[in-house]
C-alpha cells in the first residue's frame, strides 16, 4: 500500500464522495474514477479498475436528481477496494465478497447523507432569521458550515466503515467454503455482463427532451 493510514484514506475517500452532491460535481465520485485511483493508493490498481468498471456499469444511471438519491456508489467502490487490497490483494473471489459487503454500506451512506440534508434545513432557517435581523454574514457562515458538514459526515463514515466492515469481511471470508469462492470467481467475469445490460437499458431509456 502506498498509503496505509486510515485517517488519510478516509480524507481522500471523503473528497471523492463529497463531489457527488456537496461540492463541485467534477465526477470524482464516479466508480470509474475513484476506484482505480483508490486502488492505486492502496496497492492494486488492476482490482480497482475491474471493480470500478463493474460498479460504474451496474449503477450506470445512478445520479442524484433533486430529492432522489441513489446509493452512494463511491462508498461502494472505495470500501470494496480498501478491504480487498488490505486483506487479500489480487484475489478476485475476495473482490466479489468485499463488493457484497460494501453494497449495504452504500445504502447506509445515503441515509447519513439524508440526515445531513435535514440538518441543512435548520441551518437554512438560521440564515433566514439572520437576514431578517440584518446579519448578512450568516449566509457565508452557513454555507461554510454546510460544506463542512457534507465533508465531515463522509470522513466520519469512512473512518468507521473502513475498519468495521474490514473486520467483518476478513473474519467471514476465511470461513467460506471452496465452492462459494469458486462461484465468486465466476461472478467476477459475469457481473460486468450484468453491468453492460444495465448500460444498454439506461442508454435506450434516455429521452432527448422535446
Amino acid at each position, binding site marked *: 500500500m502506498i498509503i496505509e493510514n486510515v485517517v488519510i484514506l478516509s480524507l481522500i475517500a471523503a473528497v471523492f464522495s463529497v463531489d457527488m452532491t456537496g461540492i463541485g460535481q467534477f465526477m470524482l465520485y464516479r466508480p470509474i474514477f475513484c476506484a482505480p485511483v483508490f486502488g492505486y493508493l492502496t496497492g492494486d490498481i488492476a482490482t480497482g479498475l475491474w471493480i470500478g468498471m463493474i460498479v460504474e456499469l451496474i449503477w450506470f444511471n445512478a445520479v442524484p436528481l433533486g430529492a432522489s438519491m441513489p446509493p452512494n456508489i463511491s462508498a461502494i467502490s472505495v470500501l470494496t477496494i480498501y478491504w480487498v487490497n488490505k486483506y487479500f490483494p489480487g484475489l478476485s473471489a475476495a473482490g466479489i465478497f468485499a463488493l457484497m459487503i460494501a453494497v449495504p454500506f452504500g445504502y447506509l451512506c445515503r441515509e447519513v447523507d439524508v440526515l445531513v440534508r435535514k440538518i441543512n434545513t435548520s441551518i437554512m432557517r438560521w440564515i433566514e432569521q439572520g*437576514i431578517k435581523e440584518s446579519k448578512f454574514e450568516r449566509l457565508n457562515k452557513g454555507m461554510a458550515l454546510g460544506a463542512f458538514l457534507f465533508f465531515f459526515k463522509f470522513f466520519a463514515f469512512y473512518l468507521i466503515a473502513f475498519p468495521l466492515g474490514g473486520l467483518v469481511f476478513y473474519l467471514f471470508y476465511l470461513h467460506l467454503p471452496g465452492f462459494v469462492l469458486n462461484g465468486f470467481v465466476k461472478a467476477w467475469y459475469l457481473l460486468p*455482463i450484468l453491468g453492460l445490460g*444495465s448500460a*444498454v437499458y439506461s442508454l435506450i431509456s434516455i429521452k432527448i427532451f422535446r
Partner: protein
Amino acid sequence: MIKRLMFYGRVFFIQSLWNFERMQNVGFLFLLAPFLDKFYPEVEKRKEAYLRHLEFFNTHPYMAVLIIVLTEKMEREAARGNSNVIPMISKLKQSMASPLAAMGDSFFWGTLENVAALGAVFFIVFFYSGFDNVDPRLYLLIPLGFFLIYNFFHLFIRYFFASSIFIEGRDVLGFISKPRIKQYMSTTKAIAVAILAIVIGAYFYFYGWRNDRVLFFEMSMIDILVFVLGFVLSLSLNKFTSAAKVYLVILLCVIWAYLGN
C-alpha cells in the same frame, strides 16, 4: 478577471447547503449575494432582495448559473428603480428551473458522462489481461482520461455561463438553443451507443472465448452462450434494483459452482 474567478469559484458550492425544504435556495443566494450587495447599499432593500431569493429553487447545478446570470440583470434593473421587474424575477426562476434541469440532466449526466465512462471501460476491457507486464502507474491514465474528457466540457460550459454575467450582450440563451443542444445530445448518444456495442463485442471475445481457463464449461463456445444468457437476463431484470441484481447473479454463480461446475 479576479472578480470573474471569484464568482466562478462560488459556482462549485451551489449545493453545499442543499436541503429538503427549499433545495438549492441558499446556494443560489450565495452566488448572487456579491451582486446584491453592490446593487443595494441600503440595508432594508438589501434585506428584501436577500429574502426573495430564499424561496424554493432547484435545477441542475451546472445550469443554475445561467438563471443567476439572468436574475442578476433583472436585479440590476430593479435596483435602478424599475420595481415592475421584481415580481417577474421569481417567475423567471421558477419557469426556467425545470426545463434547464431536464436539459442538464440528460446532456451532462445522461450522455456526456456515459461517453467518458464507456471510453474508460473500453480501455479496461482491452488491456486488463496485460496488467502484469506494465507499470501500474500507466493505468492511471484510464481514470484520468475519463476525468479530463468530462471536465473539459463541464468546466468550459460552467465558465462560459459564469463569465456571461460580466459581459454585456452575450447571447447566453442562444448558446443553449434547443436545436443545437438536441443535435449535440443526439451525436453524443450515438457515440455512447457505438462505444457500448464495441465494448460488448470485445468483452464477449476476450473473456468468453478463452481456452486457457475454464469459467463455466470447458468449451469456450458454451461459455459465450452463458454470457449471452447473462446479458439477456440483465436486460429482463429491470424491475429489480441494481443491488438485487448483483446479489442474484452472485447467488446463481455460487449455485452453479455448488452443482460441481
